[in-house]
């Protein structure tokens, strides 16, 4: 059997080399240093027409990560809200959440992306008739325009202050836990931590003279000047990914909460713990054990699904690298292999971390 497999692989490699030879394609990664010569509509780092193909790979990867992270945040928030709403004693709210889940879970993501992009965002008004919020946020057919923060001299102190505040909070958290273990008295860690994390950077920010200016978008002629223009492709993809994934997350959250036995809540009540503490200290920690692994696989799905960006032309890894770059260079094997390797590395890393988490939170059976 081993020999058969080896022979089969040898046969494929042989064919491939012959075919590549016949088409005049050279194997190898030399093309990564060649000049790309096409432009990309959204670049998080500097990029021009004369950048290399290697650069297009990085740009595509960053764009994929951007939309994935935005999507994961939004999907988690919507998913938790909908999942909890499904368990609400309010009949209408529970029904509404059920309808949400059943509708969005059963429609292909690609249809949803195309719907948001072509049917909703394309029918928005032109820049001159933009819909605006507080005269700072504008929505039009060319996307979303939001104010752009412009750091001035001395702004660097604020992020440092934030970092220090986080460190102090962590140290304080550990101290509070030790104290609770020793004396049984709990400190209001969340409130104090929030105060430190918000307060310290704010004080530093004000003390250095508020060194941050907002470049507010302004309508000049036919377009906006200033501010950040978020591509409509990004908005459509983001909406579709988060709404679609949220439907699955909602089901996971619901099943996680339902998996905690009723007896746990009843026992907490008989110890006369208040409702909020029951939820936070008894129900949620046990529900998380069920929720987190499934949630991670949803996150991975979201990252993989973000490759559908290519259908509407959002410049993600697949569209830029496995699309344009592949068409221009013809290095199919190297490019597809690199693209797949990126997704594989992401999934394998996350699965590995997940296994560590699982091992840590496993029920300790004695």
């Amino acid at each position, binding site marked *: 059997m081993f020999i058969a497999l080896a022979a089969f692989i040898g046969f*494929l490699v042989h064919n491939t080399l012959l075919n590549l030879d016949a088409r005049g394609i050279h194997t190898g990664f030399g093309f990564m240093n060649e000049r790309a010569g096409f432009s990309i509509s959204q670049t998080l780092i500097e990029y021009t027409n004369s950048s290399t193909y290697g650069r297009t790979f990085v740009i595509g990867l960053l764009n994929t990560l951007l939309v994935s992270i935005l999507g994961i945040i939004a999907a988690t928030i919507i998913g938790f809200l909908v999942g909890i709403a499904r368990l609400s004693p309010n009949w209408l709210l529970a029904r509404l959440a059920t309808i949400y889940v059943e509708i969005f879970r059963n429609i292909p993501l690609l*249809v949803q992306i195309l719907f948001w992009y072509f049917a909703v965002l394309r029918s928005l008004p032109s820049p001159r008739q933009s819909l605006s919020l507080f005269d700072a946020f504008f929505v039009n057919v060319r996307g979303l325009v939001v104010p752009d923060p412009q750091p001035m001299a001395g702004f660097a102190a604020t992020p440092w202050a934030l970092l220090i505040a986080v460190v102090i909070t962590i140290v304080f958290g550990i101290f509070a836990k030790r104290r609770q273990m020793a004396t049984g008295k709990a400190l209001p860690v969340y409130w104090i931590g929030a105060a430190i994390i918000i307060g310290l950077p704010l004080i530093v920010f004000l003390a250095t003279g508020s060194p941050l200016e907002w470049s507010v978008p302004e309508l000049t002629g036919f377009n906006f000047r200033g501010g950040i223009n978020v591509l409509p492709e990004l908005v459509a993809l983001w909406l579709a990914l988060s709404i679609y994934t949220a439907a699955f997350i909602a089901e996971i959250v619901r099943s996680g909460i339902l998996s905690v036995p009723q007896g746990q809540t009843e026992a907490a009540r008989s110890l006369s713990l208040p409702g909020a503490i029951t939820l936070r200290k008894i129900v949620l920690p046990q529900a998380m054990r069920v929720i987190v692994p499934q949630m991670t696989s949803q996150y991975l799905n979201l990252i993989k699904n973000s490759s559908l960006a290519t259908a509407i032309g959002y410049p993600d890894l697949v569209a830029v690298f496995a699309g344009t770059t592949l068409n221009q260079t013809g290095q199919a094997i190297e490019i597809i292999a690199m693209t797949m390797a990126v997704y594989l590395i992401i999934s394998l890393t996350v699965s590995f971390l997940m296994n560590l988490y699982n091992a840590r939170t496993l029920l300790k059976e004695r």
Partner: protein
Amino acid sequence: MTTPTNSTFRTEMIEAREAPNQSRGVAGWLRANLFSGPINSVVSVVVILLIARLIWPFLEWTVIDANFLGSSRDACTGDGACWVFIASRFDSIIYGFYPEAARWRVDIVFAVLAVLIAWLAVPRLPQKKWVVLFALIGFPILAYILLLGGHFGLAYVPTRAWGGLMLTLTIAVVGIVGSLPIGILLALGRRSKMPFVKSICVIFIEFWRGVPLITVLFMASVMLPLFMPGNIEFDKLLRALVGIMLFWSAYMAEVIRSGLQAIGKGQNEAGQALGLSYWQRMGLIILPQALKLVIPGIVNTFISLFKDTSLVLIIGLLDMLAIIRAGLTDTNWLGFSTEGYVFAALVYWIFCFSMSRYSQYIERRLNTGHKQ
């Protein structure tokens, strides 16, 4: 012994009094479910307002103000949706560019498929085994002969002309029928004691599960021709089908593996004690139990597979979604994308929702025997 006639005691039961007005009927239901407290009442009001703001305009757009009849764009007079767009392209949405004279062949395949699915889905109908056998072997051959043609005096229809819902269903059915057996083999391989077989299966499964389907389709359309000896031309549809089958077989394998794990070790050992061979033990004892346990999981994988058939439009196959998209670029019908995508969403939704309902129904049915 006589019943005491003392007036201190009652001799007959009092009629149960009716529940208080407030907890009966519509008012009672409303109180219990919508207005049981201040927070609940506020939530209810907000939800009702939300429904009024969102769902009512949607209904107005899709049904009340919509146009259904007509043949050209002139028929779109209402403020709502104009379903004339869908109606005018209905044939190509179903059949793609399949030649009109040969469409009866597609109809026959659809009809047989519908009968098979109905037969398998309704638990009361008999002879399941033979129907499954026919669905897995006879039906694909029949569909292949009828759809592609070229034999028995049927005109040849190249796969380039296939499209619409017919192509969507073809991809879905081939994907489902193909990925299940491969998935079973992979799942068995992953639990095998032979390290070589096991590691090959683990690598295969983890590889396909780690990459997005689009890159697989790209690979199938760009890289597969490079792997084959120079003169063999692979059909584009066939390449996509191979990619989809391999991709989903990995997911199927994981679902089936979870079923295999749920079957106690004793079953296998009992089989060994009876002197059954590996394949006899698997085929007669383990798999029938394991597959039954994971039917809901398998159906859920089918649902995902069905939804993901829409991705083939990215490599240029004309499935239902692609045909609708192509219709939207028709200059006579510019600006009807909402109708187009809402219709596509509805069709996919009907298929997926009925499958998910069926899987829940099966889950409830199976629960009776296995709950401990």
